[in-house]
């Protein structure tokens, strides 16, 4: 699966150009499917090596019809959703405290720096060992994965609140709560959402890795099933569903950014 570090140009903004962009995207997809079909036919590949687009399509229909795709997708979606919620809430809370308290920063800061070096995905097997093959271990993986980017970006965001705006709030005798609401939250929102955008996509990977390691439900499990039965078309169906899931999540965060950060102007305006 592809992780997008930066928004693709066509996702950035819903503009008139969007329509032509959309046409091009569809064309490029059709082209890819054509090439795929061509390879299968010319190389005479057996379906368990590379199923044709048609076979994958039929398998998709089957998985939709018997409800298995919806069931497993829902499981993964739940794991990611609950994990994101827990991870983001904890990271935002702790991030704010860290940014505002030099003492806490000195105590916990070194661990945060070190934690940046942990490949969080590699912890997935550990969490499955500790918390079992059920949903809990995947929820924890997702929470953990989204935790660090959001935490770090929240700290940086709150730190970056302009000194003079703080002074302004002080001269206006703003309460602590008002400073949070009128200054700190809006000022750190761009960085916060940036962290969320990275974390949300990564957390889908986390959930799937967890499911691949050990589970009895979810899209990762579906991939395992397909692999075990040489049902490669099913592996494709599950993989495409995962990509869609990650892209939708990513798009939702972009939409949120677009709604909340209109004051920044579209990235295109700066060029």
């Amino acid at each position, binding site marked *: 699966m592809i992780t997008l570090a930066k928004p693709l140009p066509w996702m950035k903004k819903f503009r008139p150009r969007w329509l032509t962009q959309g046409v091009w995207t569809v064309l490029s997809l059709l082209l890819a499917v054509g090439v795929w079909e061509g390879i299968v036919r010319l190389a005479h590949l057996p379906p368990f090596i590379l199923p044709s687009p048609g076979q994958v399509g039929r398998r998709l229909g089957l998985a939709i019809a018997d409800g298995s795709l919806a069931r497993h997708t829902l499981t993964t979606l739940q794991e990611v959703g609950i994990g994101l919620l827990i991870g983001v809430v904890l990271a935002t809370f702790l991030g704010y405290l860290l940014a505002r308290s030099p003492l806490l920063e000195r105590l916990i800061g070194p661990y945060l720096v070190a934690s940046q070096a942990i490949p969080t995905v590699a912890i997935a097997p550990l969490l499955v060992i500790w918390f079992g093959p059920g949903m809990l271990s995947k929820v924890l993986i997702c929470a953990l994965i989204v935790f660090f980017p959001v935490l770090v970006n929240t700290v940086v965001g709150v730190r970056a609140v302009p000194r003079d705006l703080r002074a*302004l709030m002080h*001269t*206006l005798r703003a309460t602590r709560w008002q400073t949070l609401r*009128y200054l700190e939250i809006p000022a750190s929102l761009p960085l916060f959402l940036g962290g969320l955008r990275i974390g949300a996509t990564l957390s889908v990977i986390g959930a799937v890795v967890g499911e691949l390691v050990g589970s009895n439900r979810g899209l990762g499990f579906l991939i395992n099933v397909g692999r075990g039965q040489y049902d490669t078309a099913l592996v494709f169906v599950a993989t495409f569903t995962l990509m869609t899931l990650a892209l939708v999540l990513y798009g939702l965060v972009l939409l949120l950014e677009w709604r909340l950060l209109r004051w920044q102007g579209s990235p295109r305006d700066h060029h």
Partner: protein
Amino acid sequence: MSVATAPALDVVHLSVNFENGSSELQALEDVTFQVWPQEFVCLLGPSGSGKSTLLRVLAGLVPPTQGEIRFAGGQPPRIGYVFQQANLMPWRTVLENIMLPLELQGVPPEEARRQAQAWVERVGLSGFESAWPRDLSGGMAQRVAMARALIHDPDLLLLDEPFGALDALTRERMGSELLALWQAQRKTVLMVTHSISEALLLADRVLVFSPRPGRVSLDMPVPLPRPRSDELRYTLDFIHLARELRQAIG
């Protein structure tokens, strides 16, 4: 400037030290002066002479190391503060920036909006209510800052080189506009400036600060008649006062 009333502001033997690691830096030393209600006072002095520090102490942003500040009525006054950079919130429109002080005071949003709209017009920004700060010129942004500093009817207006970042022409125009606003509102004003002619056009009194540690080296009334216009610059009285100030600054 009637002598019968109590001063709006009484600064008594004020000293401010900053600790920079091991060493100490004295920014202000034994500063004493008074400001009368509705008086317009300009602060002149070389950079580093503690003018910004003085404003920050008056605004309660920096604690005095020694001495004290007495305000009329014994209470810290309501403050309007304008910084050298407009210091607007980039996520708020022009109107929303101007209404911020009212929101913080708990004024209902509708009422706050109505008053902010009046200020938009007063500072000549009609049509720009919903513009974002990033789309404003330096002069427009500073007008927004001025409206924001005045909307909550402050007792004391503190201006720290408010036109310092503007080009000369905009600067002159903003000076006249400020004069008109002050003529109408009659706030007590302390304004830091580097421009002698700006000080003479605006102020009732000019305080000159010595190089660090800052002390008041000259406390000069400006006896030029009001209302004042730009033409004043070319009069003999004006030029004499300007020379006196120039010599005091050194």
